């Protein structure tokens, strides 16, 4: 069994939880459909977003330089990191330079990707995650299971227990409003004493040198405006050319992500506050090699909205933690193998190739086509399990040989009819676990067609 399948099995062991997970994410997908349907030009917006991102990827150096010139002109300090280690070292050097003790961080998938919290922790520096979902999983020592809904794998009773232990809320209390209030009070204290705030970046505007951060909770703004030092972290692909492009992306992002017309706060940071310092740290960390591969380049158009996760029949039923990679779900499954083909070889298989991910993607990333391309590449590079390769080899031989195909089809129809149930559903038949085959037909389609065509 693949790693993904093993972890999915654990998730599915709790039937009521996995059903809740499936239904809840489907509800988010339906909300997305509802609000997208209220925008008549929705499909045009997706196309425009896709075209802008394609242009960005083709002219990335130009836009990055333009962004840096503008931002620097506004007194912003722009730094570059080649990889995760350089990125973490840069953040550490900023913290040390300003002797920052109290650090707050709002959501940033890049810092997750680079393992920033762990890196700083080993050097005795603690970062407080301020997004409620992220704070919950930080308390529990877990990784986010979804990029927009990081604690979607947890039930309120579990969160209640965690808060009882960490924040002294009443034992057994699990009311979401009560727990959210407790977190608000706890994190307000963290904001008021913060001396450095780290955020992610949704969009960076080349034309103006501005970074844009979208939140519902207001945690990015509370951190950035309370702390004298603000540090915004972005991958190189977050650049968009012009201010007016934001009109397209802000119309797509929240509608795709959570089914809201826009996030509660869409914040534009261009200059530090009076007496403050603003940094933008731009990381490559494996994006340039991805850019060099035409087949997989489009994955860099991703806006990190999570729509592909909410719609994915495999994600909804297996949970984000079953993927193992920082970014789970369909988009993660085409990003991960680029990092390590062997380690993540099972992720492109964890898909039904139904194409729903590509259909909801606001930037029109061809996710399911890339999943298919990865399957072929990983098979050719011999990164998949030998069992899978042998099975595929045999399947290939059978499908290419007419007589053999007919014979085996005949044998299978007979076998399914006469063999005892326990033989057909023996442990080797992984597909048969939890599934029943339909009754075999009397003849193959080929035979049926030959007979009926003559009439």
């Amino acid at each position, binding site marked *: 069994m693949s790693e993904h399948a093993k972890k999915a099995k654990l998730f599915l062991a709790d039937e009521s939880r996995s059903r809740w997970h499936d239904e809840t994410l489907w509800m988010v997908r339906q909300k997305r459909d509802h609000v997208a349907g209220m925008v008549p030009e929705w499909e045009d917006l997706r196309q425009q977003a896709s075209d802008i991102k394609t242009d960005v990827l083709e002219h990335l150096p130009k836009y990055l330089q333009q962004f840096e010139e503008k931002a620097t002109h506004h007194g912003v300090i722009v730094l570059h990191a080649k990889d995760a280690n350089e990125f973490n070292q840069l953040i550490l050097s900023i913290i040390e330079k300003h002797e920052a003790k109290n650090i707050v961080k709002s959501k940033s998938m890049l810092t997750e990707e680079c393992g920033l919290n762990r890196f700083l922790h080993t050097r005795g520096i603690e970062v407080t995650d301020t997004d409620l979902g992220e704070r919950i999983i930080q308390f529990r020592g877990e990784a986010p299971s979804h990029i927009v809904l990081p604690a979607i794998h947890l039930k309120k009773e579990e969160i209640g227990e965690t808060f009882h232990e960490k924040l002294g809320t009443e034992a057994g209390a699990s009311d979401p409003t009560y727990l959210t209030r407790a977190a608000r009070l706890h994190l307000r204290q963290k904001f008021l004493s913060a001396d450095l705030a780290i955020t992610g970046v949704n969009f960076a505007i080349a034309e103006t040198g501005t970074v844009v951060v979208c939140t519902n909770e207001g945690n990015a*703004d509370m951190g950035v405006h309370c702390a004298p030092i603000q540090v915004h972290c972005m991958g190189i692909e977050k650049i968009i050319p012009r*201010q007016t492009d934001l*009109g397209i992306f802000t119309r797509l992002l929240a509608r795709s992500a959570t089914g809201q017309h826009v996030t509660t*706060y869409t914040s534009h940071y261009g200059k530090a506050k009076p007496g403050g310092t603003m940094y933008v740290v731009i990381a490559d960390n494996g994006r340039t090699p991805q850019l060099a591969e035409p087949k997989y380049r489009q994955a860099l158009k991703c806006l990190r909205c999570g729509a592909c996760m909410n719609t994915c029949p495999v994600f909804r039923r297996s949970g984000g933690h079953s993927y193992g990679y920082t970014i789970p779900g369909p988009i993660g499954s085409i990003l991960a193998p680029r990092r390590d083909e062997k380690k993540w070889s099972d992720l492109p298989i964890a898909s039904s190739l139904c194409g729903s991910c590509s259909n909801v993607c606001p930037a029109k990333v061809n996710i399911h086509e890339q999943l298919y391309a990865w399957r072929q590449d990983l098979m050719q590079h011999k990164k998949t399990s030998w069992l899978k390769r042998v099975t595929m080899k045999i399947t290939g031989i059978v499908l290419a040989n007419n007589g053999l195909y007919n014979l085996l089809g005949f044998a299978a129809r007979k076998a399914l009819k006469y063999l005892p149930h326990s033989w057909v559903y023996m442990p080797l038949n992984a597909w048969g676990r939890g599934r029943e085959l339909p009754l075999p037909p009397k003849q193959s389609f080929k035979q049926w067609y030959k007979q009926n065509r003559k009439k």
Partner: protein
Amino acid sequence: MNNIDILKERLENAGASVILLTENQLQSCLETHFPSILNFTDTVTCEEYRKASLEKMEKIDTALFAGRFAVAENGAIWLEDEDLPQRVLPFITQKLVLQIHVSKVVDTMQEAYQQISLQNTGFGVFISGPSKTADIEQSLVYGAHGARELTVIMLS
């Protein structure tokens, strides 16, 4: 529906309260509904808070700001540095009141970005409702970190 109706509906859906007033009703409305309000459309109040400490600002119950314009399709209201003696104010206040003139409503975000100049703005924000979260079992709770309540006063 005209864009004022759409704006009102989208704001209310996002958890905000909307009050429609004429300009000469504003003062009495504020006195009745928000007796302890800090009015940041007033220069004296702005000056008082330009250098205020976080501790002082944390104690603010209700704060009023004038939005530059609003976006009908999503209820977003634009504020920028010039409207704010300190950037943290509309977030740190417990309750937020934003006033906006009905003539300053655009239809979509694409029109909205024609109205502003990020080139010349140190900080600007679209606010479309009270702070909220659904991180616990997808149950919607208002008042995560920013203002717990948002009231939008639409002036005609």
